[in-house]
């Protein structure tokens, strides 16, 4: 059994969210839902995080930010898109500055739809993410190699 499923630390980034989903993410930490009982810690540091929670869609300006946070997280890592904005762009889809969902920039493992996504749904999404984390932990070597190849290709592309 992988210990990572027992202590998933997350980092939360607000793309171009309307702040509705962010408040629901923080609501998960309150005594009402208390995600710490699953060992979840809301870290503010990508280097400590295992799960990347993104709320809101990606816009032209924060593409490098999202990518960099993702890059800085040590493997195994999982991305959870929270709210319909993060999944596909949602109501902001046709805005001039919006690229679309988070999956346009980084690979997403779990989609949590809803506007705003309810805390129960977010916790559900994180727990789903744990399955993906466990799989990645088991195949860590492969994951690392794949990431390295992807990084090199991206560098060449640049």
């Amino acid at each position, binding site marked *: 059994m992988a210990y990572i499923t027992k202590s998933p630390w997350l980092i939360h980034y607000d793309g171009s969210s309307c702040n509705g989903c962010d408040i629901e993410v923080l609501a998960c930490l309150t005594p009402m839902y208390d995600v*710490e*009982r699953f060992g979840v810690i*809301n870290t503010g*540091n990508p280097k400590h995080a295992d799960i990347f929670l993104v709320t809101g869609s990606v816009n032209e300006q924060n593409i490098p930010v999202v990518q960099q946070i993702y890059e800085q997280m*040590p493997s195994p890592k999982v991305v959870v898109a929270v709210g319909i904005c993060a999944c596909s762009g949602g109501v902001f889809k046709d805005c001039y500055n919006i690229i679309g969902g988070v999956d346009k920039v980084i690979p997403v493992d779990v989609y949590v739809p809803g506007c705003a996504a309810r805390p129960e749904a977010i916790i559900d999404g994180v727990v789903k993410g744990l399955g993906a984390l466990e799989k990645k932990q088991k195949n860590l070597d492969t994951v690392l190699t794949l990431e390295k190849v992807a990084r090199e290709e991206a560098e060449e592309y640049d």
Partner: protein
Amino acid sequence: MINFFGTEISFMQILTGVLYLVFAPVIGCLIAGIDRKITARMQGRFGPPILQPYYDMRKLFAKEAITVRGSQELFVVCCLIFMIITGLFFFAGGNLLMVIFTLTMASVFLIVAGFSSNSPFSQIGAERELLLMMTYEPMVLLMAVGLYLVNGSFDVSEIVMSDPISIIYLAGMFIGYMYVLTMKFRKSPFDLSMSHHAHQELVKGLTTEFSGGTMAVLEIVHWYENVLLLGFVFLFFSNGTVLMVAIGVVACLAMYFLEIIIDNGYARMKWQFAFKSGWIMTIIFGGVNLIVLYYLKLFGLIGA
């Protein structure tokens, strides 16, 4: 008795040293887990399982190793080694001054590790850790002097076994030590450099650039350190009798519980306050206690 570089070491000392080596992380881990549980309950939450710190540590070891600078890992490992050596000196009944100096060495390595990455967050964290060190170090040294005056020896083994119950003569020192212990335990209001909470804030500073295994080693250092610090509390109570040993252990646990209450009851202070108040407490409680001890000795009221 065996001869170790000219020092006589009894088998009892070796035994207690080995016990520390093996059980200190276990106890430290359990204390940390219970701490998190009690803290959660105080905040009206359910809290993580008691073994959560252990899960965290195992997870961190399994993660990909990302190092900003190679030397960082070395410094953190040195920190662990010095922490273990400190504990061995202490629990094998070695010299208290030696214990304090090696403990300082462990902290110094931690600070150097913080400085070794160029991230502004960890630099600020390291600076704050230095400031805290300046604040608590005088009190810890005074405490050693006080224990010497009462018990007539710097050796931990003698302090534990000698007749006087130190806390009676060293009540002031004890209060002063309690005050700086909050800094050493990294608890609010003095968790300026490496808080357990407030993960998104500057106060997580020192650990910003540590990830994976390095971070896990740091956790283990913390477990060893906590047990050692509670060992200092124990010194104030023990006089070798079973009763006082039991009271000492209870006092250690009570002390930690008190720290948890303080942790949850106070907001974080600025470093200026931590620094000033730390020294004022040291001078008032430590200093006055020392003067009182001097007069007690002058009139022959305590031995040695």
